[in-house]
């Protein structure tokens, strides 16, 4: 674990963007240097990936994720900086690289797999598993030009997940296929992890990052914006995605005269930290500990929609007509939220302790807590509505 499979050190990459790329000698002679716009896709990017760990790489489109993968894979050369990489590497930047429509499924498997670094013997050995994974047993001797796009994707992925590298770079390719196929793919990534392979996963699906990765790096306009635990980085990513670019984002602040000792988000059955059903009530329970006698405590909470980051619900003890009495020690405040009427999805909770009189912030935890709202699929029951009948002559 201690050895880094990949060390990225101060890597920068400059692209020259031409309005129209000079592809002939004449054009090259005529075009002045100034016509090319320089563009730094990466600036001083550094991170490590320890052997056997999984790194999630996130960032909006054009943030440099694919560029850094290509540099690690050796497809692009860095403009500055160093990448040290140990172990056999396979980069899945595209499904079905090299697929040719005129070839049969079988031939394409061998062609594609050889690009991913498999030898003929490797492929002979895993061929059946590949076909089974793709669920295309009857079609392997058909030309792939007769395949549907879904079949092509499945075949490409089936080859991809049967590669046998020590280091695996996966770019976005998990985002294909239907639910069931995706689940299968996630399962394969977990297998890779169990087998001790090192993985870099580039994805837009932030949920995957927290689900699968040990660490995460967020790139923003070519620089490392944040790296750390997947939870922290994903939270930051949500901020940036929603346009709230707040470099001074402080998850916690306050004078700590009173502190948030614990927060539980409780479902109607009394369990904390479980998903809430649509239309069910929710209890937000805040335990407060004072560090000196506090006589004007105001507790408030705010719920934000994880998809839009818009506040959807808030309440505060003072405006609710509940004045927390002077205390020195511990208090428990419960917000009983009636039937929770929101869309299924993720919600963030911010908790704040402040002074009713001076407005002094004692302790604020911004979006520290979260809960999921889920919908239970229900069977449509028999309904009794009137049906009108019209008959016309034609």
């Amino acid at each position, binding site marked *: 674990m201690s050895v880094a499979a990949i060390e990225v050190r101060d890597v920068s990459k400059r692209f020259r963007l031409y309005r129209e790329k000079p592809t002939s000698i004449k054009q090259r002679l005529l075009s002045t240097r100034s016509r090319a716009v320089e563009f730094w896709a990466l600036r001083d990017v550094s991170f490590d990936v320890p052997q056997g760990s999984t790194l999630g790489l996130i960032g909006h489109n054009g943030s440099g994720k694919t560029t850094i993968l290509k540099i690690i894979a050796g497809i692009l050369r860095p403009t500055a900086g160093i990448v040290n990489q140990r172990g056999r590497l396979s980069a899945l930047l595209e499904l079905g690289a*090299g697929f040719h429509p005129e070839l049969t499924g079988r031939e394409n498997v061998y062609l594609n797999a*050889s690009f991913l670094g498999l030898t003929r013997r490797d492929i002979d050995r895993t061929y059946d598993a590949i076909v089974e994974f793709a669920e295309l047993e009857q079609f392997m001797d058909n030309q792939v030009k007769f395949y549907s796009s879904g079949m092509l994707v499945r075949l490409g992925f089936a080859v991809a997940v049967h590669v046998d590298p020590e280091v695996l770079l996966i770019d976005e390719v998990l985002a294909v296929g239907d639910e069931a196929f995706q689940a299968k793919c996630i399962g394969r990534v977990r297998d890779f992890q169990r087998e001790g392979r090192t993985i870099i996963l580039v994805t837009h699906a932030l949920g995957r990052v927290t689900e699968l990765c040990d660490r995460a790096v967020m790139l923003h306009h070519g620089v490392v914006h944040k790296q750390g635990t997947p939870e922290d980085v994903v939270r930051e990513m949500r901020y940036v995605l929603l346009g709230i670019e707040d470099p001074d984002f402080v998850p916690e602040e306050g004078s700590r005269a009173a502190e948030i000792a614990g927060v539980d988000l409780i479902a109607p059955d009394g369990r904390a930290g479980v998903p809430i059903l649509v239309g069910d009530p929710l209890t937000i329970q805040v335990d407060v500990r004072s560090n000196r006698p506090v006589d004007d405590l105001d507790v408030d909470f705010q719920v934000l929609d994880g998809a839009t980051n818009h506040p959807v619900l808030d309440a505060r003890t003072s405006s609710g007509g509940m004045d927390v009495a002077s205390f020195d020690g511990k208090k428990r405040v419960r917000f009983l939220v009636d039937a929770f009427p929101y869309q299924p999805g993720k919600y963030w909770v911010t908790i704040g302790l402040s002074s009713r009189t001076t407005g002094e912030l004692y302790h604020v935890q911004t979006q520290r807590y979260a809960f999921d709202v889920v919908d239970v699929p229900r069977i449509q029951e028999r309904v009794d509505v009137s049906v009108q009948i019209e008959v016309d002559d034609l």
Partner: protein
Amino acid sequence: MQANVLVVRTSEPPRLRVVERVREIWSRREVLLNLVRKELKVKYVSSFLGAVWSLLNPIVFLAVFGFVALIAGLALPNFTIYLLSALLGWNFFTTSITNAARSVIDNGNLVKKVAFPREVLPLSSIGVAGFDYVLQMVVLFLFMALTTYGVSAPAILLFPLAVVTTLAFTSALSFLIAALNVRYRDVQHLLNLSLLVWFWLTPIVYPEGLVQEKLQHYHLLGVNAFRLYLLNPMTDITIAFHRALYGAGHTIVSSGKPALVSYGVDTIALLLCAVLVASLILLRVTWKVFFDLSGDFAEEL
């Protein structure tokens, strides 16, 4: 196992170490084989005659040039063998380099998305042309056997040497042209024109003996003009192919003049060795050019 081999990537192009690089390409030979297989398959799949097409091209050539040679009064005895013995090698050479010129561009998507030794791309063009060459040569040998056209022992040894030399020279030019064409698409247009001129500068359809007779009386800057003519590597290769397959043990005359150059087999072998050595040196140079430029292919496309 190459486990825990440290790969370091920096802005500097890595140095080309030939042995190491050959080993690397060899370890990815599956890619090369599959690319060749794909090209052949795609070329001939869903065509009724399939590989027969690759035989039709030289036959049509033969008919046309046989006709022209007859009209021009250059008729050589056994013109079929004279023409094909060198033309097939020439076709291998030109097909290789014209396809190699486009090999990187046409596989742009692969180059941008997959890491593999880029040399594989021009090499696969050579492989595809080589497959056709072997096929065509088998037919030529069959034809020679059926017509009981004899070859003689020392001369036939020129044949493998000529093939190897062609291969080395073809590879050298393929690397250079493939790499340059990525940046300057002029190259492929220039190439087509050059090959046309080059073809007629090489004694493939006309008797080489005639050239020797005419040119050796002229001097350019104090050098015998025929010696200058021999500076074209394809000429030396062509002369070798002719001697190996066509003129072995025969003294062939065309309209009263010798059809072949007056050199002995040993002299031709020496010429061929010189071309081979020069080609290998050139190959080392153009390979480095290709290798250095290949780091930027993914950006240039």
